[in-house]
């Protein structure tokens, strides 16, 4: 680790600011970090497909997450310290014995994101690692807990989003898509293909969240070392040394012995130190800035009087992430609502079936029209009142409805008179002939203004009563 080559600015930060820094690191090096994650995780994905049960696949993938995350952490640390990203350097992080502990019951540790950098990046033995954790984090794993929780949430959202996207793109209507989403989320009922898709979706979600999870843990680690070990000061000194190295070297050559000077001017130095230590800059009280609404609680907890309520400042990285997440969620909601209404409009709004990209339209079986209770009498009444067109229109419509219902001819609303005759060619001869006569009578009146004679009308009515719809 070459601290002088650090690519980030070290300074004491609050835990939220360090999480913000971690997010920025993840965004900056998302591609190399993702690639390192995929390279290690992909074999596990392929192995997982050997399990028959989906749950076993997912547990297997999930259980070995610390291994894949270790690759991300090593890549991130190399990139942060401006090192050369090589496979050998990445694999160097896998020699740590504690890594394999994470594959046991410690797999359930919430604080893995914070502790892993100590294990992987500091060459310590097992006991020293434990002591260092206690010292560095002082048993405060709040940020680690929140990061783990947030990571889980993000994974769940991405999985649901991918599954929903898949079904909404592949299914023709909303109901099928919605049913598909519900079905795939019920892992006991899904098919083999769907289980493969779900596993891949979870794999993608794990990969995305792992980059952020590790980065935030690493940033927290940097921050803790800065606070506890003064890394920022060390870095500052190292830079000064680098710049003034030659001057200092010359100074050492010119001055025979620093110790000699110290002895000679020892009293003066003591006085100077006492004076410097008593200056206000080194004796100021610590100001705790807490969110306004929490000031009273903090005051009570810490038993201090000088608590300065302040508005909490969100880091720019967190703010951008929050804005992007909000935008994605709102957009997804708007798109889903829009899609829902579009499907509704497509189904009911136009009053007709959709064309479905030129595919064959679903059959639109003739709607059962509202026929009067006594069709025969109503037709006769229309006729005797001189409403010839109404009489024959009712006669023809009733004939179509009865023929369709009796012989299941699948007559559609879009079928013309000729189509109806063609569809009724296989019904019994009497009914077919009756249908033809009624159709011809109707055609002459409807489109040729040829009012049938009384005899023609009565013939049609008789055929209707005898063969189509006995009264």
């Amino acid at each position, binding site marked *: 680790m070459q601290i002088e080559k650090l690519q980030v600015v070290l300074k004491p930060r609050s835990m939220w600011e360090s999480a913000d820094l971690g997010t920025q690191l993840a965004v900056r090096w998302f591609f190399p970090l993702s690639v390192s994650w995929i390279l290690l995780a992909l074999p596990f994905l392929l192995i997982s497909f050997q399990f028959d049960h989906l749950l076993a696949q997912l547990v297997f993938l999930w259980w070995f997450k610390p291994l894949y995350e270790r690759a991300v952490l090593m890549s991130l640390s190399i990139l942060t310290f401006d090192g050369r990203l090589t496979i050998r350097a990445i694999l160097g992080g896998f020699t740590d014995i504690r890594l394999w502990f994470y594959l046991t019951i410690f797999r359930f540790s919430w604080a893995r994101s914070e502790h892993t950098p100590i294990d992987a990046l500091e060459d310590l033995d097992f006991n020293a690692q434990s002591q260092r954790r206690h010292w560095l984090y002082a048993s405060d794993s709040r940020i680690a807990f929140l990061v783990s929780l947030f990571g889980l949430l993000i994974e769940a959202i991405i999985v649901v989003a991918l599954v929903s996207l898949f079904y909404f793109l592949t299914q023709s209507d909303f109901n099928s898509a919605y049913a598909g989403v519900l079905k795939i989320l019920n892992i006991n009922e899904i098919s083999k293909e769907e289980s493969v898709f779900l596993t891949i979706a979870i794999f993608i979600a794990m990969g995305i969240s792992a980059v952020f999870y590790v980065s935030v843990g690493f940033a927290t680690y940097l921050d803790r070392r800065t606070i506890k070990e003064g890394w920022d000061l060390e870095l500052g000194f190292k830079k000064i040394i680098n710049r003034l190295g030659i001057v200092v070297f010359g100074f050492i050559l010119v001055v025979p012995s620093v110790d000699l000077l110290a002895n000679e001017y020892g009293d003066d130095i003591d006085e100077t130190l006492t004076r410097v230590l008593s200056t206000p800059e080194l004796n100021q009280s610590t100001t705790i800035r807490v969110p306004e609404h929490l000031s009273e609680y903090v005051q009570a907890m810490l038993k201090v009087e000088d608590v300065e309520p302040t508005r909490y400042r969100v880091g720019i990285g967190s703010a951008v992430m929050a804005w992007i997440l909000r935008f994605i969620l709102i957009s997804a909601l708007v798109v889903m609502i829009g899609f829902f209404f579009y499907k509704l409009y*497509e189904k009911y709004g*136009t009053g*007709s*079936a*959709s*064309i*479905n*990209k*030129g*595919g*064959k*339209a679903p*059959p*639109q079986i003739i709607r059962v029209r509202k026929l009067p209770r006594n069709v025969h009498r109503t037709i006769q009444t229309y006729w005797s009142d001189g409403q010839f067109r109404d009489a024959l*229109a009712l006669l*023809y*419509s009733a004939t*179509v409805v009865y023929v369709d219902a009796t012989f299941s001819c699948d007559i*559609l*609303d*879009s*079928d*013309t*008179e*000729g*189509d109806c005759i063609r569809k009724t060619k296989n019904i019994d001869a009497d009914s077919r002939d009756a249908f033809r006569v009624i159709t011809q009578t109707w*055609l*002459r009146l*409807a*489109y*040729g*203004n*040829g009012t049938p004679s009384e005899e023609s009308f009565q013939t049609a009515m008789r055929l209707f009563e005898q063969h189509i719809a006995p009264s």
Partner: protein
Amino acid sequence: MNSETDHASEELEFAADALNKISTSIRQVFVGQETVVNDLLRCFVASGHVLLEGVPGLGKTLLVRALAACFRGETGRIQFTPDLMPSDITGHSIFNMKDSKFEVRKGPIFTNILLADEINRAPAKTQAALLEVMQEQSVSIDDVTFQVESPFMVLATQNPIEQDGTYPLPEAELDRFMIKSMIDYPDEKTEASIVELVLQGKHSTSLNVDAIEPCVSVSEIERLRRVTALVEVDESVLSYAIRIVRETRFAPGINRGASPRASIATIAMARVAAMQEARSYVIPDDVKSVALPVLRHRIALTTDLEIEGKNTDSVLEDLLNRVDAPRS
């Protein structure tokens, strides 16, 4: 009133008879392709122009010559090529040294039935030379307008394959074709009949159009066209035709719908269809039977449908299944 009705009936019977004769005559040499012959005949009587799409060798030229032979009409044929100029179609004026004045030399467009072969091989400028004559039945050469002889019909062909170096017809010109008919390979039985017919003829390699005796005169063709006006179109049928055309403008999967000219063409074609059956009125079946040839070249499918390999016919068939037929 009765005399009018009788006259109409007589005229309709004459029309049905004449159409039947023409159809029979054409079928003496042009075997199979009933739909194409029927579409062509209807369009000819409805004073429209036909765009015929089919691979070479299916008898497009023969069909034109057979139709012209039925009424002793003249036929002209222009092979469209990339270097064809508009004046090669319409004609041009040329300076006569002897008389020292310009004289007009009329192009092959001055005929009764013009076969514009592989029309999409010529650039848009040349294709546009047909616009005026197709719409106005007149040709302008050097500021002088000439009327073409009646009956006049353009029968343009295009090849669905070998699209390299072609110029797709502009929408304005496509819209001027009343119908687009698809001529496909004949089935085995029909092909056998064609070969047999060729072998029986004097010419061993082609069908002999000279065998067709003229069955109608030019004046009778004009009379046929007038009779179409006698065919009534009920309001409900008109509404049905318009609803079909309008549906093309709003249907999903269709990028560009048909123009009002399509509605006019549908009714004109449907009238001839009714006339073929000596019927004095149009029924919805007539409209439905002509909808495909009238609309198929007037709509443009969306890109995704084209990528999926959907054709306009299947989209139009679905569309026809969505438009309710009039029943009251």
